[in-house]
């Protein structure tokens, strides 16, 4: 019947819907932290026998994805006193409708795909696809630079979830390398965000359009 993983994944799906509709950067960051925590604890529930190294690695992932990454964006906002509205290109109501379409589409597609998943969880693939598409949606339809960075991290979370459903697990050292890259990327983006704020006095990416042909 229902197992705990499917239940927490359904919360992630709800948070996806929520992130389509919200206009506050702060709420987006909180949602991001929640999604980060959930995707990093999934390996605990998947059949593998957890070695000590595996457990430590999962906990490190949890700390980085769930706490360090959202916190570093939060700090970037606090220091720069950046405007906190996401400045959408597509309106909130239309966004929520898109969110519904994304979730339905993701469920349909993952039903069609014949994935040999070891997990047996019904919601793993739909959630992963939904996270990926949501990240891309935020990247494309929000002019606020912070919302774009958040979109990028959501995409990464989605990819991590796809990977954790794999029957062939990569080694922890490799996954750790990927995590380190993502973390460094977010740190650099946070530095750039602060500089954008200082230079332009705003984080609206419409200001970043002087270079073009």
């Amino acid at each position, binding site marked *: 019947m229902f197992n705990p993983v499917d239940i927490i994944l359904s919360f992630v799906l709800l948070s996806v819907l929520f992130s389509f509709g919200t206009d506050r950067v702060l709420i987006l960051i909180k949602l991001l932290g929640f999604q980060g925590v959930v995707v990093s604890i999934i390996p605990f529930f998947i059949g593998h026998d957890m070695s000590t190294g595996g457990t430590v690695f999962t906990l490190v992932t949890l700390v980085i994805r769930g706490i360090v990454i959202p916190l570093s964006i939060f700090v970037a906002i606090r220091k720069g006193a950046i405007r906190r509205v996401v400045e959408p290109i597509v309106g909130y109501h239309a966004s929520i409708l898109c969110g519904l379409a994304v979730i339905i589409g993701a469920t349909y597609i993952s039903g069609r795909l014949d*994935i*040999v998943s070891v997990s047996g969880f019904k919601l793993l693939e739909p959630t992963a696809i939904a996270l*990926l598409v949501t990240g*891309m949606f935020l*990247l494309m339809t929000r002019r606020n*630079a912070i919302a*774009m*960075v958040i979109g*990028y991290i959501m*995409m*990464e979370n989605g*990819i991590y979830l*796809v*990977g954790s459903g*794999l*029957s*062939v697990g*990569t080694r922890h050292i*490799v*996954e750790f*390398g*990927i995590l*380190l*890259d993502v973390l*460094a*990327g977010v740190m*650099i*983006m946070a530095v*750039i965000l602060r*500089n*954008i704020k200082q*230079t*332009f006095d705003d984080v609206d*990416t419409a200001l*970043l*359009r*002087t*270079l073009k*042909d």
Partner: protein
Amino acid sequence: MVEIVFLTPFIAGLVALFLPKLIGRSLLVLTGAAHLTLSFMLWRNQPQAIFDQYFAVTPEGMLSLLVISLLFFLISIYTVGFLKESQIQSESLFTGAMLVFLSTMTMVTLSDHIMVMWIAIEATTLASAPLIYTHRSAASLEATWKYVLICSVGIAMALLGSVLVAFSMGQANAGTPISFSALAGVAKTLDPMWLKAGFVFILVGYGTKMGLAPMHTWLPDAHSEAPSPASALLSGVLLNCAFLGIFKTNKIMVAAGLEDFSGGILMVFGLLSILAAATFILKQNEYKRMLAYSSIENMGIIAFGTGVGGLGVYGAVICMLHHSLIKSSLFLCSGNILLGYGDRMIKNTGNLIKVMPRTFVAFFAGFTGIAGLPPFGIFIGELCIIVAAFKAGHYVAITVFILSLCVIFAGFANQIMKISFDECDTVIKIKETAGMVWPQYLLLLTSLILCFYIPDSLNQTISDAVIAIGGGLR
């Protein structure tokens, strides 16, 4: 000891962050020389890596590594002169980032594991971001933001693609390591659907980094805003590194018998890039952006040639070698021009032949090389690709290819003539010192020598690289 080649510049880079200016500059050149020596030793001995499930010496990687090493050494010599003339606020960050950037690119060429390749390519983005932001201006901030965001998102696609390729192994190959060489070995047993999906995502992902249209939008901005030695590295070797990821994945596709699928997509992206370059180069009014669009064109040619297969792959590799050598020398020349005239716009330059004769020689020679005039290397490469495409019967594609090359030549030549011979009364701000022109001459000379004489050992490496994806001098 394969790993030492990328660990040396990494450590040197970290040290350089804390060194005063003058010592940092000499460390840059010294590390460049050490790296070149190590790369040659690697090429001669072909040793086994310590972490052999992650790293391996492959012919295509070795070829890129030799180019990176040679280019970096010559560019580092130029950089010393460049740094004396230009005002850069945090020079230690610049030299440190250059060295770490070299280290990450070396790691790309040596990685065999599909995920380690991803880690290394993403690391090149992160290491080169401070280089683009060197001037601390609003425009350079914009370029850095676009570069980091577009490339990170693009490369995230490649990560998804890599995961999908791992998916294609299924239960049957559960014990196989996820490395390019191992996957090529068991390619026939991989699930073609997942493999195809993985290839598309990897092509889009690494294609973003390589500058294939329509994902190329970051490239002109980043190349024009970065200081010229960094632009030369970005254009000359970073784009090749991204291509290496596509090339190696294509190797798996060919081994799995899916070369028609992968070749078709590569040709479409290649043609799109050449068309995009032809559209934007005609009306270009900044010379560094013009060179950047020329890089997009050349990446398009390389992707197209790889897609055509057979002789085309050989042509693509030849184009890649010569493009790196010539384009980096052109970017270094553009650095001299920028320092001399103090302006990026083509209309504010002119009469280069009189005011900066030594730069003019390298700039104009570079132009004739990159435009594909015979008997230079790019011409030979393009000819191979055209012949291969005719043999394979892609008549429409090759017509578009040739016509676009003509348009690009016309646009490029028009701008170069303006820079070289138009009237201009600007007073030149710098002296052309030997260190700021000889690296360009040496790069061009290497390219020229390689047109007429390729050492047997190098030729062997090239043919080993192209044979794996069904290419060769046939």
